């Protein structure tokens, strides 16, 4: 570590790291800085009459509804930890380590919930499991009643837990793959069965990944917006992100200082959680290096007769968390009306799709989304690569970058969108790009920094530095050594990261709402705009198109050998 850092600096590019840190800092801190400034004022920061005050914080911290929202968020976050961490780890163990049937398929399908935007999943859950849902209908005709509800805080926690299983699965699976196989071998030789081995050898080794993903779940719980927006509406269940709507309605016009104060409060919570995570785990490298050598893989553990039962458990999970909700959305996009008493064959229609392709704003949204996701995804990939390199090799600067790049996701998407609108309006050099797709791309890049940087950090950790170091010894410049030594080895990881970013950019929704102009519409932001005025069937059709795009890209990716677990 020490030696590496020195070497990097000896490479001559001393200015490179501070410059990088400055750039990331600017991108991440500009919108948050505006919010912080706004939260300390009595009026909009661009208003002529304003003064510094803590009024906004005083209001928010004296509002019982804020604490109720905070409590709901915490409950949902804890529910996610309780459900997603055990399930995700179990599935990771089954898929990676055992002779589970159809493991290849499960490997792919298990990731599906990550790639569908939560608003859509929420609508899907209503169409499938809601009081009028088709699954509820079958169950009611069998049992005479429906033994569940999806509109309470515990229900939202369960749904959020189920749909976040893939996040835990990804982290744990990649760690399990790298677990030193000789330790497990020793346990087996000593006569331990698969589950005894899992509990006594594998589990302790992947503990860092479990802690990491547990705190990640809490973090994502506080950021949750789409699911509670859709599922909490009828009963007025608020979480910290949807509490913002209440602030606006209570005051009657935009209470920017209150919205900003709430956002800063959420960012602080997130920052605390990130600190806790880092404290529990030590630095990034630590948790991977400790895992030890890889290379010689253990043959898969036989599950015996239980293998079909476990496959059934996984299948059931996929059915409930993925297949039925998606079916629900697709169904909704194809019918005029639904619910008890409707003959679906009579109300089938393709009109909603026709509408998308005849309305100029919606058809533009489809093409713009593809453009932002493909070209934009590539550009942000390059940016993330630089940040990840900085974190890996930058010592103190690296640690600074590491923290910086963890912040943005914590700001509620809508507020982040508003903050970016302000940045593009009031930072004059940026003004010309406000009404282009570039502004959207920058906002997306910043918002997805934590995700993208993590992808690339992981990719970097997987390739050896030997080639690069050899090149340096042979006299190549650092840049050249990297380009010819490490980059070729990174190719697989980069490709995978690009696919994953593509998918996230297709599904991103709330950030674009304020940057949307006539000509730069994207599917996600259109979905949020449409949710307000009522065209759920159009939303469902747009969502189906989104799912098809994501699904095709995903299939293509797995065809050419991209393996998300590899990261």
């Amino acid at each position, binding site marked *: 570590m020490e030696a590496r850092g020195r070497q990097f600096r000896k490479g001559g590019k001393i200015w490179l790291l501070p410059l990088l840190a400055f750039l990331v800092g600017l991108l991440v801190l500009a919108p948050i800085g505006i919010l912080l400034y706004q939260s300390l004022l009595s009026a909009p920061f661009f208003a002529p009459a304003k003064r510094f005050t803590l009024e906004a914080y005083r209001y928010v911290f004296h509002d019982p509804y804020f604490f109720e929202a905070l409590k709901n968020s915490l409950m949902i976050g804890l529910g996610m930890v309780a459900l997603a961490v055990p399930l995700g780890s179990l599935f990771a163990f089954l898929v990676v380590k055992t002779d589970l049937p159809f493991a290849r398929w499960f490997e792919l399908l298990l990731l599906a919930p990550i790639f569908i935007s939560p608003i859509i999943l929420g609508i899907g859950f209503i169409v499938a499991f809601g009081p009028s849902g088709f699954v509820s209908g079958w169950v009611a005709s069998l049992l005479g009643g429906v033994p569940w509800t999806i509109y309470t805080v515990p229900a939202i926690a369960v749904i959020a837990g189920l749909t976040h299983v893939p996040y835990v699965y990804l982290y744990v699976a990649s760690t399990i793959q790298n677990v030193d196989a000789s330790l497990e071998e020793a346990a087996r030789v000593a006569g331990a069965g698969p589950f005894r081995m899992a509990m006594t050898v594998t589990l302790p080794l992947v503990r860092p990944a479990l802690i990491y993903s547990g705190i990640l779940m809490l973090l994502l719980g506080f950021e949750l917006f789409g699911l509670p927006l859709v599922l909490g509406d009828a009963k007025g269940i608020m979480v910290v992100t949807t509490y913002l709507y209440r602030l606006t309605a209570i005051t009657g016009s935009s209470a920017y200082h209150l919205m900003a104060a709430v956002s800063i409060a959420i960012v602080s919570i997130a920052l605390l959680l990130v600190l806790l995570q880092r404290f529990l785990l030590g630095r990034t490298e630590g948790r991977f290096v400790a895992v030890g050598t890889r290379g010689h893989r253990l043959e898969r553990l036989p599950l015996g007769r239980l293998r079909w039962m476990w496959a059934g458990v996984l299948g059931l999970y996929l059915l409930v968390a993925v297949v039925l909700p998606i079916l629900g959305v697709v169904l909704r996009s194809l019918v005029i009306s639904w619910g008890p008493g409707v003959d679906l064959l009579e109300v089938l229609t393709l009109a909603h799709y026709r509408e998308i392709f005849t*309305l100029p704003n919606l058809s533009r949204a489809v093409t713009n989304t593809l453009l932002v996701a493909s070209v934009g995804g590539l550009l942000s990939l390059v940016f993330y690569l630089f940040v990840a390199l900085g974190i890996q090799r930058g010592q103190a600067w690296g640690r600074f970058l590491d923290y910086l790049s963890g912040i943005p996701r914590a700001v509620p998407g809508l507020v982040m969108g508003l903050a970016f609108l302000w940045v593009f*309006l009031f930072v004059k050099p940026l003004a010309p790009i406000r009404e282009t797709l570039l502004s959207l791309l920058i906002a997306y890049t910043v918002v997805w920094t934590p995700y993208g940087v993590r992808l690339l950090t992981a990719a970097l950790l997987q390739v050896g530095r030997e080639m690069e170091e050899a090149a340096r010894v042979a006299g190549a410049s650092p840049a050249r050594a990297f380009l010819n030594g490490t980059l070729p080895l990174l190719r697989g990881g980069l490709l995978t990261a690009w696919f994953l970013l593509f998918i996230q950019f297709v599904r991103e929704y709330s950030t674009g709402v304020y940057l*949307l102009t006539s000509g730069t519409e994207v599917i996600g932001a259109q979905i949020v705009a449409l949710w307000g005025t009522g065209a759920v069937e159009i939303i469902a059709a747009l969502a189906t198109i989104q799912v098809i795009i994501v699904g095709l890209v995903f299939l293509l990716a797995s065809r050419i050998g991209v393996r998300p677990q590899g990261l």
Partner: protein
Amino acid sequence: MKFLLWLLVFLGATVLGQQTRPISDPAVVEAARKEGRLIIYSSTDQSSAQALLNDFRSLYPFIQIEYNDLGTQQIYDRFVSETAAGARSADFLWSSAMELQVKLVSEGYALAYDSPEAKNWPSNARLENLAYGTTMEPAVIVYNKRFLKPEEVPTTRESLARLIQEPRMRGRVATWDPERSGVGFTILKADYDRFPAFQELARAFGRAQAALYSSTGAAFEKVISGEHYMAYGFFGSYALLRQRTVKDLGIAYLTDGTVAIQRVAFISRRAAHPNAAKLFLDYLLSLRGQNLMAYTALIHARRESVVGEASPKAIYQAVGGKDKVFVIPVSRDILRNLDPAERLRFLTFWRQAVKGQ
């Protein structure tokens, strides 16, 4: 039968409408030709506005329209921020958030314009020559015909309060959540201020465990699926539009008094294309534009003389007279709704009545 009748009236009106062009000053038309562009921020869904935009384009093909379909809050946020930054913003703002629109106008954001089409415009539908109410959209009851027969659906607050307290209606009624929706607040507060029977209805909502929604979309979706049998207080215009495709939806009007809101339009004082915006305002107020709203776009027209499915005449007929309709006026009085104490007055009542708090 009813549909055929409307169709005939519509065909007649279209023929008439095609001949009548909006009255606009030729000098304004010439100036708009030079501007060649028009930026609109609007809360009207593009799908219902498209017919209006196409028709306007056929009148003035030289004007390129940039139509931004946004939420009411986003319209306000963006316009205020962009104006403060001196950046490009809307020329024309058209939104159903009446308070926000009037607030902007009263803070000096509007361009004064005496539209030649507004000669006999109702006095409660204009704020001087700054802002104009372009529609008259009644709050109605939307219900699902699979679960409620039309004759079962009450048309007064009193009988509605009785019906929803029947056991089968428990959890089956939806209305606005005024604590989470600005537009919902405007409608329900007007209802509260004007009609004493609303208070008993609000308490009935509480007893019936009514679901409270922050958006029209979610509420309608759940009436369509039958999760709720009826929804109270949502816009008749959206309901008509949905009813066109979803045959299960029924609409009932309140005969003991109906609240109606107006979509308020104004031209920005800093508009880059003020003349094009003037033409669009003339068009929206013109017989031709209003006819199109009443027949095709199904956004209730404001002109009293218009006949059609979504017109004042049709509303008066449905509710039993003009005196039964309370149209929230486009005036500075509505700014009282933004006063914290005034908001609290209604919200305190609401919480007590509906949530027992």
